[in-house]
């Protein structure tokens, strides 16, 4: 790149430089992920399993909530007549309280799954640096 800069009065055909040929070897982990080598498989299975565990746990919590409340009201009739101050308990739970609970579960899931992904991303980047 030394010397006087050329003047661009004409259109110039732009092509890839030869340096790109070495890219693949530089990123073994990330490319292993896509190319399904044994190592990539292992990394991904770890990520998938962690995410699936979290998904299964939160799904179970949601299912327990959605199955538990009707079961409670159906099987323990006394709970239908409880009151919170002047308001009947079933209305307070089903009409209002359940929504913050849903949002809380969602926020918890979003935070945890982001953490998992960040850890994975950091791990992949770290592994790449070590390989170089």
């Amino acid at each position, binding site marked *: *790149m030394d010397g006087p*800069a*050329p003047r661009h009065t004409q259109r110039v055909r*732009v*092509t*890839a*430089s030869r*340096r*790109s040929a*070495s*890219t693949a070897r*530089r*990123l073994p982990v*990330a*490319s292993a*992920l*896509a190319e*399904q080598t044994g190592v*990539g*498989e292992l990394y*991904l299975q770890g*990520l*998938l399993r962690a*995410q*699936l565990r979290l*998904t299964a746990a*939160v*799904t179970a919590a*949601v299912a327990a909530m*959605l*199955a538990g409340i*009707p*079961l409670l*009201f*159906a099987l323990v009739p006394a709970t*239908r*007549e409880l009151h919170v101050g002047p308001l*009947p308990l*079933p*209305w307070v739970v*089903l*009409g*209002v309280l*359940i*929504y*913050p609970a*849903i*949002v809380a*579960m*969602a*926020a918890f*899931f*979003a935070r945890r*799954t*982001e953490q998992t*992904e*960040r850890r*994975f*991303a950091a791990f992949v*980047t770290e592994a790449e640096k070590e390989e170089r």
Partner: protein
Amino acid sequence: MTAPLSAAAVAVVCVVTLGLSLFALRFTRRTSDFYVAGRTVSAGRNAAAIGGEYLSAASFLGVAGLIYDQGVDALWYPIGYTVGYLVLLILVAAPLRRSGAYTLPDFAEGRLGSRPLRHLCTVLVVLIGWLYLVPQFQGAGFTLRLVTGAPGWVGGFVVVVVVVLAVAAGGMRSITLVQAVQYWLKLTALAVPAGMILGAWWASQGPAPVVAEAWAQPFTGRAPDEHHLYRTFSLIVGLALGTTGLPHVVVRYYTNPDGLAARRTTVRVLALLGLFYVFTIVYGVLGRAYLPVLGEGQRADTVVLRLPDVVFGAPGSEVLTAALVGGAFAAFMSTSSGLAVAVTGVLNQDLVRPLLARVTHGDHSEVSGFRFATVVAVVVPYAVSRFFPEVPLAAFVTLAFVIAASTFFPLLALGVWWPRLSVQGAAAGLATGAVLAIGALVATGLIGQDRGWAAALLAHPAAWTVPTALLTAVGVSLATPHGIPAGARRTLVRLHTPEEVVVARRAEGSGTGAVRHPV
């Protein structure tokens, strides 16, 4: 009732919707803008847009109507509508966004690489979308009839015209802006009158709600042989899992910039939906206080619109009624336009574009095909809505939820998490779910009876159709390992790999590969 002001409110909502569409049209440049807003919509606006699109006639009028009618047991409807987004978040939100497809058929083809499967999905998307559109038009019809005395066909026709113009003109980009505005419009239109009615009731020591025990207490409203607990469970299953498979909901996810944003958006959506539904309860409960009995032929769905008049009397209530009518029309239009975009997208890609290409030998513009498809997508369900018997709105959209839960939910859940899903398995799952769910719902309409297990199972089929469809997909997939697409594992990698990794790779890759200008 309050004809001039309410008619003006409807006109204002129509003009705002069209105005925003045309305003946004100036920013619509490429085909991807048309379908998915070029995929650059911020999380906050996208959440409001999702909320705006999702809160339909069934939410704005139908939920309050059902609460008025059935009491505490109807509270499961809004809970189900909301939990649907939680399930969507947990199971598919981020991977769905990363799949990079535009529509459900795109996802199916991208994940499983099969054209026939794609066509099967197209048929189901159009069916579910149309089924969901019918109650929107019916709601518009009876709303306008109630407040202005216009014939029943006018309300739906107004919605059809505005939606076709808005969608055909601006596509998805304009719709995103319109929907976001319409969420806040709807919330205000519902919350402000609710607050005033509640305040008036409180201040004047208004009448107590006139209710039976069956209305106020859960699981007391039905005879034992109606199997109330099962019906509730099945309703929850259908609504919670159905949201994931609704075409207009899924299309929305492609407008998030990445998987992370898709998740954050969903958390906000849940908060926005919960906020909205809490206000609908005011109308259901105070409706019982002020309107103990509805007259002959008056739908419970109209309670929201009738309440201000009863509480405040003629002169003062007109403004509130007009606000509610405007909000209701915002609901009809936003949901209809979302559905219209979704149905139009698949109709255009799978039907209109190939057809036009054959007829004109490739000599047609992409946009004219999109516009033609929009008209088809909206006019057909409008015609159906004129003949279809009127059912409570919230119950009507539940049919669409049940079919979506029985078909697309298994496809998406397995497609995102299970590498061994085969083409045959996916197709068998879709077909089984569709046949069982539609069959059960049609049978319910024909039988028209409430007692016994058979009636309960047919009226609320989700609890058995969804597991059956899932198991069919899994079983057939295991039996046909040769049908697993070659790149299945690689596709799953892409769906679950965080963007940071992909982006880092791409940046590195192109960084070394790109030619720097020798200056």
